[in-house]
């Protein structure tokens, strides 16, 4: 069990992470929050590359920084910024990381080839990383995180740059390997975690505001998600006052999806909430047009 106790990361007067306390047991956790909410900072603390200003992280009762090598031995991590040695081929890079993870070279060779197959890079394994697209590099990053068959897998925006089919493939991989593992993946794209996460952690301005199963979060929003059609002029007039999830413009009319605890209009009808509505409910969506 990974236990986060009162973890705070402060940069002068700014809190990147504020008093976060929670426990992570086996399962897939989705860390959801807008850009700058503190997701990456929290993840960097969890992988022991950043020392929190206050609080501590323990794994099975022992502090992770004291566990050191033993903790890193069961850890897989994909940071938000990941490049890879440009002059190495995908295969060489993964073999290099495998050796750093203390994997025997013979085992590593098989493991590397298997993972390249898993992430769909088998046909380009001899190609240098400098020729890889963003999505391909991201897949190399995912493969390196899985090399040591980690018990704790922390992926910071793993789907950034991946096309829809690759996203689906990643979801499949995560579901497949999630048994006996703690998997934490951060994103600000709701659909990435909608189908795979056992629990969702909502983080806003450094604070953990919710930690619940998606079903529970959705149940809390029952009867608060509405859809209606209104003309464009009315929409533009009232837009600022609405908690808008979506707006589809159709020949002078706009079909909107909004969150409201009261009936917003007599023509409005309630609909089933989705995780995307949860996101707007907690974080807002000022950029919906």
């Amino acid at each position, binding site marked *: 069990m990974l236990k986060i106790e009162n973890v705070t990361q402060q940069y002068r007067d700014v809190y990147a992470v504020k008093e976060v306390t929670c426990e992570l047991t086996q399962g897939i956790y989705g860390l959801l929050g807008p850009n700058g909410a503190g997701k990456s900072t929290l993840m*960097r603390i969890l*992988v*022991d*590359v*950043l*020392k929190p200003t206050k609080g501590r992280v323990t794994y099975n009762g022992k502090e992770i*920084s004291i566990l050191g*090598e033993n903790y*890193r*031995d069961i*850890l897989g*991590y*994909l*940071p938000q*910024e*990941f*490049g*890879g*040695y*440009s*002059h*190495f081929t995908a295969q*060489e890079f993964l*073999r*290099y*990381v495998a*050796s*750093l*993870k*203390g994997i025997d070279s013979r085992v590593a060779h098989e493991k590397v080839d298997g993972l390249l197959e898993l992430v769909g890079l088998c046909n380009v394994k001899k190609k240098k990383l400098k020729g890889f697209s963003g999505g391909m590099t991201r897949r190399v*990053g995912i493969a*390196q*995180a899985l090399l*040591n068959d980690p018990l704790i897998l922390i992926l910071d925006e793993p789907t950034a740059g991946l096309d829809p089919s690759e996203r689906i493939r990643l979801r499949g991989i995560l579901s497949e390997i999630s048994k006996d593992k703690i998997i934490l993946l951060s994103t600000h794209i709701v659909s990435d975690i909608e189908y795979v996460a056992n629990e969702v952690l909502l983080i806003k301005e450094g604070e953990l505001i919710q930690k619940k199963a998606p079903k529970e979060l959705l149940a809390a929003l029952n009867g608060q998600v509405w859809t209606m059609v209104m003309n464009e002029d009315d929409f533009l007039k009232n837009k600022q006052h609405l908690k808008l999830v979506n707006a589809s413009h159709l020949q002078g009319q706009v079909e909107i999806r909004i969150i409201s605890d009261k009936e917003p209009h007599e023509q409005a009808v309630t609909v089933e909430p989705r995780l995307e509505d949860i996101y707007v409910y907690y974080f807002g969506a000022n950029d919906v047009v």
Partner: protein
Amino acid sequence: MLKLDLKKLVTNRLVLPSIIVVIVIWVFTIFHKHQSGSQKILENTLSFWNVLGSLTVGFLILFVTTRLFAMDREEQVEEVIHTTKLGRRTLFLMRIKTATIFMLVIILLFTCIQLVISVRIFNTGQRLTLLTELSLWQQTITVLIGTLLFTIFTALICDSFKSHPITLIICGLFFGLSYLIRGSMIHKYSLEWILEKGFFSFLIKGELFRATSIDVLEIGILALWYSILIIGMYCLNKHLRARRKEI
């Protein structure tokens, strides 16, 4: 790990051109001296490390081996590396080993080039004495020790600041000064003397075995100064790594 780190060094674009340039310049120099007789060749042979050899070694250390310690950050793999089991202290020590092995091979290669071109190709064979060859290898050993110390020193600086340009500026400046501040007018143990000999150039230039007489006090003071440099940088590096949670 070692094999792939060595590959990073060997495949560096600067390595092969540097070796070729050294060979070409040395062939021209020796060919020029060859016109004045084989005695001149022997005299010149012993001055290989004085400028050409030592400058190339300094260049390779600063632009090739040192980069190994800043590459992770440049290529955005630093956090991945630091979250692996052996990616902290073990990797750092392994990279020091890799850099020293690489430089060892370079020094031996240069010595062979020096021997083959100067002695075997241009020398008539009559004047090559055991003493000359012995003195050549003695110089090589001195150069080797200096190179290893400078490699470690630059590696510690680069790893401490995690920046190749900063390392180039600091180490390049001090190493370069030893070529600018030269001459018999320099007072022993003065600041100029420290700048000339203090950043491992005394050893890398092979001066120890070229001097007519060996000043034990001078060597003792330099040995002490080199130890202070290495130990001081090691302590600073340890402190900074601990602060960055890299130990």
